[in-house]
């Protein structure tokens, strides 16, 4: 299967290359240079936030679950971090840990509702998101807390033209790839996503696998929250609302070739998906594309890309289904 996943991934990096090439040409015709240091920096900067969210999202989606609460979780985490640090450099570690812990707990809540209460992940995480929103709006009347300048570096400093946050994101991505490939829990995520009943009957601890995925997803959102805090210098709640971060993340994951139905895909692809979105953002900006046109283009491109992948998977499994009983568990499943 590694081989199979590899060539799918390869295709996605091809797509990325294509986007970069076309973007580069377009910008060049427009009289600019997409590969100027400034633009490269910009591109990478735009990867980190969506990146963190998409990494976590990949795990839950692989398990045939979903997390629509990541935006709110990130906002909550940024609040916790900022208010805990409260401008005191000595409390940075404490604040960061607190944020990750809270985010992890939110993930755990999601996981528990999905796997133990058997609520469809779409609804479960949508609900949890609303609960967090309610809490934040009631508890904080706006941005709160203060992030010490030392920690703001996480959001602003860069090595050569690669921002630190992006490096952290890539490091976590590498860790994620390793986790999925080399640990049992990671490996079992594919099984759980493939068919939860078969996985269970084969002795896989499906519930705890699902929990792990959700907890990790929450913690990734926590990291995203830390990034927000670092870049804002404070914790912000309103941030998450207007911009549907969760949808960005899901789009990145699917662009990365991971099946929304679970069981197939991986983090390497997701990184490419994130990059594609980032490149588009930069290109649009450099070319001064009208803000509304951006949405149209983004939407169209996402659909087209996924359609191309689908074509391929189609031709692959064109044979009659031999997999009667190893189908999908519609109850635990999600469209």
């Amino acid at each position, binding site marked *: 299967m590694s081989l199979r996943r590899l060539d799918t991934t390869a295709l996605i990096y091809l797509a990325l290359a294509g986007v970069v090439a076309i973007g580069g040409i377009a910008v060049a015709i427009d009289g600019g240079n997409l590969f100027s240091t*400034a633009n490269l920096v910009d591109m990478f*900067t735009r990867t980190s936030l969506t990146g963190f969210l998409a990494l976590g999202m990949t795990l839950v989606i692989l398990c045939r679950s979903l997390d629509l609460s990541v935006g709110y979780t990130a906002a909550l985490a940024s609040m916790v971090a900022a208010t805990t640090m409260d401008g005191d450099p000595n409390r940075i570690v404490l604040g960061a840990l607190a944020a990750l812990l809270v985010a992890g707990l939110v993930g755990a809540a999601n996981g528990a509702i999905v796997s133990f209460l058997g609520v469809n992940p779409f609804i479960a995480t949508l609900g949890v998101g609303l609960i967090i929103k309610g809490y934040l709006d009631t508890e904080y009347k*706006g941005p709160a807390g203060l992030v010490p300048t030392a920690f703001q570096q996480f959001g602003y400093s860069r090595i050569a033209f690669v921002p630190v946050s992006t490096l952290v994101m890539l490091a976590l991505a590498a860790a994620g790839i390793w986790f999925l490939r080399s640990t049992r829990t990671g490996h079992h995520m594919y099984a759980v996503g493939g068919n939860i009943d078969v996985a269970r009957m084969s002795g896989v601890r499906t519930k705890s696998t699902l929990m792990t995925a959700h907890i990790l997803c929450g913690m990734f959102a926590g990291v995203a929250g830390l990034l927000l805090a670092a870049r*804002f210098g404070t914790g912000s709640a309103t941030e998450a609302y207007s*911009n549907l971060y969760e949808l960005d993340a899901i789009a990145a994951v699917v662009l990365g070739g991971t099946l929304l139905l679970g069981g197939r895909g991986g983090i390497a692809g997701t990184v490419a998906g994130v990059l594609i979105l980032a490149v588009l953002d930069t290109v649009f900006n450099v070319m001064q594309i009208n*803000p509304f046109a951006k949405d149209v283009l983004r939407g169209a491109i996402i659909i087209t890309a996924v359609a191309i992948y689908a074509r391929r998977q189609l031709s692959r499994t064109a044979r009659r289904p031999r997999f009667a009983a190893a189908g999908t568990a519609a109850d635990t499943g999600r469209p």
Partner: protein
Amino acid sequence: TTDEIPEAETTEEATASTEEEWFVQADYEEQLAQRDIEPEGDPTTPWLQAIEPEWVDTSEYAVDGGDHTVCFSNASVSNPWRVTGWITMQQQVEVLQEAGEIGEFLHSDAADDDEKQISDIQAFIDSGECDALLISPSTTATLTPAVEAACESGIPVVVFDRGVNTDCAVTFIHPIGGYAFGADAAEFLVDNLEPGSTVLALRILPGVDVLEHRWAAAQEIFADSELEILGNEFTGGDAAEIKNIVTQYLQRGEVDGIWMDAGDGAVAAIEAFEDAGQPYPVMTGEDELSFMRKWKETGMTALAPVYSNFQWRTPVLAATMILNGEQVPKEWVLPQEPITEAELDDYLERNEDMPSLHYAKFGGEDLPGFPDAWRDR
């Protein structure tokens, strides 16, 4: 009915904390005072007027020759007020480009995403193309570090509309502000309603300072009035939501006054009264045309508080002034006067062929693009 009193109380409690969070006595008093100060400069060009300006020298930023590249990081154009302003700004830019003051005008739109706007600002700085950088921050607190970074880069920075928690910008342009807006509206209700009358407050969303200030000021004034505040509801500015909420309040009892922290969907609120067969309330909206036209048409008692939309002209002008080394006010406080019954006809006439969701005090009448640029958006 009796069960309303406790309700009213609970909501007051619930919002009481807001007060501490958002209410700064000094700023409040300053803004209320500024309303009565005669601004310096020519009243026919309010966007160049300034209240108690403290002029600062900008010679250090002077660049010879014209055709300067001006960059603009916009928070978003996600609501009609910003759309109107954005058009005005572009029209102003064209004039300055004609005049050879501005060469290229680069802009980026963050679609209300603070994170994106930070990246946008960074991108402008890194590109090294900008002679001046205009910023309309999406959120005060969160954009502060980015703006500071921009200042450090050495190019002149002009901040307008919402502020940031730093005065590193060469100039910060804004109308008097949220407290004044909220106070104008609240005072109007207090003056035009009998003691004991009931008022419903309709708000867009929580946590945005410009809006929170309006509500904070209103509460301050309602607090020592005889008016009963039925509640304050978040509507997201969605007309349907507004109409639902108002309708439901009307089912439970009389509503004599409506206070809004922004004009979006004001008409829907009025229609709720019509459909419920209730007398029109005393109402404050904004200088958005559909509201003003409805106001005219119904002849209701109303006020259009103004958050001066013409401020969108000022930043580009300020940028050229700075790049020419001319003095600009450190904090450029623009006039902000509500539109009263008396001025209603005048403003409706001036904006006769403007579309609804256009803002009366957009201040672009003298620009060459007028009226097509605004009418045909």
